[in-house]
């Protein structure tokens, strides 16, 4: 049992707090997805139990990257539904660290020749991992009515 929960229950048993106060304190201890739970205030009879202990920030991490494509063509509708685990993306990013430096330089040269001002050698694996971590916040919705196509990219 969590130490904070034990303290709350002990205070309730000792009559130092009411059942309502205990319920609010226990609810404050519950982790909430994508939310910060904070409890501040004084509890009558409490002896130095820090309210800051109840502040928690829990963010659920996305597990999958989903790509949905729906389009209507002359021959009929086309749907593409792809779900890729985020772990696979992270592992693929680590694979990039195995590319030799000479290959990076050749790629940079080729990209600059084609007008893409990108220096791959300066992109570190940790940058890419951070990028993948933030993919959880990404949502792309494209609705091209003229082409009768819809594209959705999101993390779940």
């Amino acid at each position, binding site marked *: 049992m969590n130490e904070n929960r034990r303290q709350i229950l002990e205070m309730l048993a000792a009559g130092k707090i009411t059942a309502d106060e205990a319920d609010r304190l226990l609810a404050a201890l519950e982790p909430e997805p994508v939310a910060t739970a904070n409890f501040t205030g004084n509890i009558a009879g409490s002896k130095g139990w820090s309210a800051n202990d109840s502040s928690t920030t829990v963010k659920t991490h996305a*597990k999958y990257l989903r790509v949905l494509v729906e389009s209507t063509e002359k021959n009929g*509708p086309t749907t593409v539904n792809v779900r890729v685990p985020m772990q*696979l993306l*992270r*592992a693929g990013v680590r*694979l990039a660290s195995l590319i030799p430096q000479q290959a990076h330089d050749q790629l940079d040269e080729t990209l600059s020749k084609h007008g893409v001002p990108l220096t791959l050698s300066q992109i570190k694996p940790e940058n890419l991992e951070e990028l993948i971590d933030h993919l959880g916040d990404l949502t792309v919705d494209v609705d091209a009515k003229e082409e009768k196509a819809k594209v959705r990219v999101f993390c779940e």
Partner: protein
Amino acid sequence: MIPNIAVLEIQNPHFRMPRLWIPLILLWIPLALLLLLLSPVLFIVVCAISIANGVGPLRVVRIFWDILSSLRGTDVRVTSNGSKVLVRIM
């Protein structure tokens, strides 16, 4: 953990394949034997990669293992022109 089962289904207007549930252990065992046979060559390749990139050989193996392990949960479904392809890795 490496994937255990793959589900495969292919349909088109002229051909319909029943949904196959493939136990991937039937693939991993022969693959493991093949890797064992090719282990001297693989050892040289891994060492060459690690020397070229300054990355430890164990890390090289770990990266490939991570890619294999993270395939679980991959789900690809494509439907077009009366054809349907389904691939799931579990």
